[in-house]
């Protein structure tokens, strides 16, 4: 048993170090680790299968398919152009609109999809008006990670937490949506201050030189209506899933299937847009962390953490601290997959504690820390890749200069919210 624990901890540590190193794709590392624990006989293939949280994977898969329908409609381009018109030639209004728009869309779609949709349009609009897209793209990264935190379906860590802790869509709305929105508004002004005079996000531009028509952006009106109706039903399903006792994954997959059915096209092109690498990454991590759970390593870590503190405030600060360090290094998903069973064990060991405060701490801090560096979240790297097609590339250091202070700012606000709401107000 001692030897098994030692080897499993070694596999876990090496895997997470490789994920942080990024020499190999994180999905390959996660699958390799999962296969290793099966080949070494620590878990059977059937146990491995049962360790995969299909509620998380199903929810992600369903939403990815629904998003692929949305992308074909041109609706997001419509929204972006509308934002330009609403700004009435004011750079700061434009910045704020794109920030909020990205955040809101990101609350319902995954962050990578959101930035893939909006970043090219942001570059286009800023170049058309003669300013650098750099601050707007940094804002895009920050907004996507913040906005994704607002709902159960906005960010994979929330999906994992919701599934493991039995928290519903409504629980997330009641606990996270408003604070995230307020933090986003505060962040807009914070970013205005840190970009200062270096980059132009204030002042006016001549809107008349840009001839754009948002209505022409809609490519398929019928598909847009169908997608909206189904998406509305899916949202209704999320709101009612707890009462109807239907898993969120079933709601999302039902919506995706309904869209495929009523659209009646070859589903292959929609399946092409599913991020299979993300799904396999999750699968590998679930198996790896599940093996640690089976050999009570997770329990040992939880008991070790409980040596430092046994009160709720202490645990909130401890989880936040771990989140601050480890999400920055390895990204939010591996950290949250590991922390979920640890927090579950802590809650079991301390029956009097308000477990929800720990879950919200994990959600807010892990998702927000995705903004810390260029490699802390997938969306950050996607925007950096897109920025390579502009005059001012987003590099690790140029991002750190603006992204890290903003992350610390949002992290402190989130922590203040958690402490006041769950510790002082109960």
């Amino acid at each position, binding site marked *: 048993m001692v030897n098994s624990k030692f080897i499993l901890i070694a596999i876990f540590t090496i895997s997470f170090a490789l994920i942080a190193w990024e020499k190999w794709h994180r999905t390959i590392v996660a699958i390799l680790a999962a296969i290793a624990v099966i080949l070494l006989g620590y878990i059977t293939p059937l146990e491995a299968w049962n360790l995969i949280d299909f509620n998380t994977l199903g929810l992600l898969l369903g939403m990815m398919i629904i998003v692929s329908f949305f992308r074909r409609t041109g609706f997001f381009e419509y929204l972006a152009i509308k934002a330009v018109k609403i700004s009435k030639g004011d750079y700061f209004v434009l910045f704020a609109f794109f920030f909020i728009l990205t955040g809101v869309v990101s609350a319902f779609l995954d962050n990578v999809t959101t930035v893939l949709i909006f970043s*090219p349009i942001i570059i286009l609009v800023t*170049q058309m008006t003669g300013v650098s897209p750099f601050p707007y793209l940094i804002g895009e990264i920050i907004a996507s990670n913040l906005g994704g935190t607002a709902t159960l379906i906005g960010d994979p860590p929330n999906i994992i937490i919701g599934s493991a802790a039995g928290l519903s869509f409504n629980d997330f709305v009641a606990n996270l949506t408003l604070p995230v929105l307020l933090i986003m508004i505060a962040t807009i002004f914070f970013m205005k201050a840190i970009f200062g005079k270096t980059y132009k996000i204030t002042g006016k531009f001549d809107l008349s*030189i840009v001839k*754009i028509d*948002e209505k022409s*952006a809609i490519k398929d009106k019928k598909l847009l209506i169908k997608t909206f109706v189904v998406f509305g039903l899916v949202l209704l399903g999320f709101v009612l899933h707890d009462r109807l006792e239907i898993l969120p994954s079933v709601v999302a997959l039902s919506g995706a299937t309904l869209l495929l059915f009523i659209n009646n096209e070859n589903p292959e092109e929609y399946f092409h847009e599913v991020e299979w690498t993300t799904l396999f990454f999750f699968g590998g991590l679930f198996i790896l962390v599940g093996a640690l759970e089976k050999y009570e390593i997770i329990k040992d870590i939880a008991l070790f953490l409980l040596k430092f503190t046994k009160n709720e405030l202490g645990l909130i600060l401890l989880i936040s601290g771990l989140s601050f360090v480890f999400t920055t290094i390895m990204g939010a998903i591996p950290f949250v997959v590991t922390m979920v069973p640890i927090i579950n064990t802590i809650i079991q060991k301390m029956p009097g504690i308000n477990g929800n405060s720990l879950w919200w701490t994990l959600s807010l801090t892990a998702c927000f820390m995705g903004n810390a560096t260029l490699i802390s979240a997938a969306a950050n790297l996607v925007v950096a890749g897109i920025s390579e*097609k502009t005059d001012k590339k987003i590099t690790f250091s140029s991002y750190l200069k603006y992204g890290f202070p903003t992350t610390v700012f949002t992290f402190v606000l989130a922590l203040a919210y958690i402490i006041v709401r769950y510790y002082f107000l109960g």
Partner: protein
Amino acid sequence: MSELLRVQDVLTYVHPVKLDTPISKVAHTMKEEFTSLVPVVDDEGKLLGVIYAEDLLAPFIPEFFDLIEDFDYITTFGVLDHEVFSDFTHKLFLAADLMQTKYRALKPEDSVLKAIFYLVKEKRTCLVVIDNKGYYKGVVSRLSILKRLYGNGEQ
């Protein structure tokens, strides 16, 4: 059975340029010789690459345009409309900067059917023709083939 039509039967000679020929001269050749392909050769006449009309237009397109599917919703590009062209005129491009070194080449003895196949499949208006030793021989174009196949429109 009709006689075999070969590439050499529909060949037109476009004056080639050298590596250090300015792009403005390449564009001039295209205009004067009614061609969308200009060959680039060395001092001995060996083919080094080809320049298509698209290669002369592509530098005007900002790199990030690749990321956008279509521009149905845009009529004019604001500052970009002026910036791209004024910036471009300051850049001194030579044939060597824009020529394609990977290209489809035909032999004079190839069947015209082969030329038609590649012109259609690769959506090209012209293809370059070289001999077995790589020396430039001419250009085969859609128009020269059409002219040969359909004549001048006279009955």
